[in-house]
């Protein structure tokens, strides 16, 4: 058996109001892929941040190659040989790849560029060292992060939900690189909550629930259902029962719309789609292919360069955001804290941030009254309506957004990654709310990254690639369908 690279014993970490990790033990052997499995909010990322030196554990100890270590900072961890690819990449957008990797080392960018080419050939992670990071796709940026670790000679590589932003083909390439790394003795910690990937890559799996280790299983001792049960602790209701959709009148018609991204590139390249009342259209696609721009064009946050948007027969192409709200378009954006909510304003105030009535006088009592009603109805866990939104958990924040958007009794709801970073209970709540709205005749445009989410909810599935819908399919999760979607996501004509 290869020697233990890294061991963590009795780790405890408390955050305001929540016990994130409760006495966690975990070890990693050389040349092994040890997957840490758990729902969102189970404490996976917190544990890794402690190992990586971002946070400090309240109790417990870390041993690296048998010796006890106190990891003070990410840089200290990297010096020891522990590297991590975080969900939010720590790259300087305006620098080139070489410059980013040269940062913090003594080598000059030119020498770094040469070494990068060597590493990327060896591990099959092609990336152009002289490209500016802001021009790279999300997948390419992840590759740069990995190369950064390998360049520094990391013995332990932690990958935190790497595949969330990748196409199936890119995921495959990543796994190939991971196998190359393990073959060279590097220990890889793989964090995910996608069971199919876990099955494919892991040598060992440790399941974490609510900050406690449920169990560690060797390869062969586990299968998807067992893992799922361990992960959630109760039968996961994967299938959301819903009757067949009865699409009603045409709600929104997007015709050949062109638009530019913030960086000025063509983001929407003549996209067209139609959604009828009481129907959920799920759009699958790799992040960065125009999903955000599509949502923004429909909600009025981005200018349409050419093409038309018709909503209930009225042309809304370049009208203001407020007109869109009044027309009945609701929008649940991906970035909860950044876009949908005002962190320092109270829950009540956020519940009325997007509103229809043109009232002048702001009556605090009346608003708090309404707020209390919504808090009960959507079961939002908050000390009081006056508490600032930033103190709520991710799930509760999303409930606030949904409560607000639904209160506008919209005719169309656009939801982008509505369940990202939520625990299962909240995820189920979001799915049920969307289905309820659909049954009430609301048209829903779902832009999600997880295929299983799209299969669960959508009545029709469209695949977006480079700002255009490349094809439609049915929402059944058969392997052929997944294959077809995967190809379409990668731009291969089917």
């Amino acid at each position: 058996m290869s020697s233990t690279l890294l061991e963590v014993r009795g780790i405890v970490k408390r955050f305001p109001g929540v016990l994130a990790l409760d006495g966690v033990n975990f070890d990693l052997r050389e040349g092994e892929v040890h997957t840490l499995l758990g729902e969102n909010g189970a404490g996976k990322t917190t544990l890794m941040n402690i190992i990586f030196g971002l946070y400090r554990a309240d109790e417990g100890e870390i041993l690296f190659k048998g010796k006890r270590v106190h990891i003070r900072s990410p840089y200290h961890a990297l010096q020891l040989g522990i590297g991590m690819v975080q969900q939010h990449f720590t790259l300087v957008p305006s620098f080139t790849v070489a410059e980013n990797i040269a940062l913090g080392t003594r080598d000059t960018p030119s020498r770094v560029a040469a070494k990068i080419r060597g590493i990327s050939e060896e591990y099959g992670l092609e990336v152009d060292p002289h490209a500016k990071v802001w021009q790279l796709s999300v997948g390419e940026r992840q590759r740069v992060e990995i190369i950064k670790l390998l360049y520094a000679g990391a013995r332990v590589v932690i990958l935190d939900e790497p595949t969330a932003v990748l196409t199936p083909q890119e995921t495959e390439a990543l796994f190939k690189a991971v196998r190359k790394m393990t073959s060279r003795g590097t220990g890889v910690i793989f964090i995910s909550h996608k069971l199919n990937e876990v099955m494919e890559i892991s040598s060992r799996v440790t399941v974490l629930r609510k900050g406690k280790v449920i169990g560690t299983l060797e390869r062969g001792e586990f299968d998807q259902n067992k893992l799922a049960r361990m992960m959630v602790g109760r039968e996961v209701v994967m299938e959301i029962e819903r009757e067949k959709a009865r699409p009603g009148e045409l709600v929104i018609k997007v015709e050949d719309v062109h638009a530019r991204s913030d960086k000025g590139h063509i983001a929407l390249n003549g996209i067209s789609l139609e959604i009828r009342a009481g129907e959920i259209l799920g759009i699958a696609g790799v992040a960065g292919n125009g999903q955000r721009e599509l949502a923004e064009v429909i909600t009025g946050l981005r200018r349409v360069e050419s093409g038309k948007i018709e909503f209930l027969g009225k042309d809304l192409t370049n009208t203001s955001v407020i007109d869109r709200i009044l027309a009945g378009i609701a929008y649940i954006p991906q970035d909860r804290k950044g876009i949908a909510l005002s962190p320092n304003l109270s829950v009540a105030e956020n519940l009325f941030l997007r509103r229809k009535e043109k009232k002048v006088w702001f009556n605090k009592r009346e608003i708090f009254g309404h707020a209390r009603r919504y808090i009960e109805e959507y079961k939002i866990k908050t000390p009081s309506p006056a508490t600032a939104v930033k103190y709520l958990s991710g799930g509760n924040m999303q409930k606030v957004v949904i409560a607000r958007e639904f209160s506008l009794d919209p005719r169309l709801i656009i939801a982008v990654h509505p369940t990202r970073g939520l625990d299962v209970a909240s995820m189920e709540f979001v799915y049920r709310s969307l289905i309820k709205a659909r049954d009430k005749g609301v048209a829903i445009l779902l832009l999600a990254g997880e295929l299983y989410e799209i299969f669960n909810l959508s009545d029709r599935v469209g695949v977006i690639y480079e700002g255009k819908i490349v094809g439609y399919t049915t929402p059944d999760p058969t392997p052929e369908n997944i294959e077809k979607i995967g190809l379409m996501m990668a731009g291969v004509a089917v």
Partner: protein
Amino acid sequence: MNVEGLLSASIRYGTPLLFATVGEIITERSGVLNLGLEGLMLMGAFTGFVTAYSTGNLWLAFTLSLVVGALFALIHAFMSITLRVNQVVSGLALTMLGSGLSGILGRAYVGRPAVMFQPVAIPGLEKIPVIGPAFFKQDPLVYVGYVLTFFLAWFIFKTKAGLTLRAVGEEPAAADARGVNVFWVRYLATLVGGALTAAGGAYLSLAATSMWMENMSAGRGWIAIALVIFAAWDPLKAMLGSYLFGFIMSLQFRLQATGEVHVSANLLLMLPYLVTLVSMVLFSINESFRKRIGAPSALGVPYSREEKT
């Protein structure tokens, strides 16, 4: 108005702006916004003048003003980096403190004659027809200004340290992850920026004139802040911008003096500020796209690792 005279005057009036602008570029490149330039320039001018007046040693005066500039910038650094207060208000407070303190301590030195830098011609270069005398027959501080600008341009864009500085300004989390001590880089940048700004002030009381007057910087600190944006955080463009504004200021004095244009003095006094405003408008109309990339994205945002992103 002979071209040569006007050109050399533009450089003389531009140099204090150059020092302050280049100083602020370094500070802002690291992500710290220091609006206290006016206060720093006044303290620099005061320290320079007092030292020159009492000791007669000009270079000692210049260095001391650098030291005092750094010390005062330390206040702003402590406030903005360690205490993470609102950098705009802290900058304003620094300006008030600087102008107030220099006013009090400087009171006794108003109207006192003192020693000042005399122009020194660079033997070879000053022979060049038009630009020779203008560029190479100036006081030593102007030459320091040339050297400083080219050095910083090289430092920021070509050296590893420059890369680190820019990284701290653009994406502190990335720099932190790469082992860069964000706090130390920002402290150093603010201190160096403060020292250079004070040097700009010292130029006013040691080379431009040889006297001290309360609030003699007359808004140059604020023009420097506008110039940083104007130069898109690039020292070479800052040099161009500073000398351009030097030209406008000298033009305004000349017009007053020669009386060729019989517009009342006050309207002319308005010229430099009006031009700053107009140039910012023109600049931002066509460059809005490029400028957005120019500005360090983490400018004015205090960094802390524990912050729950």
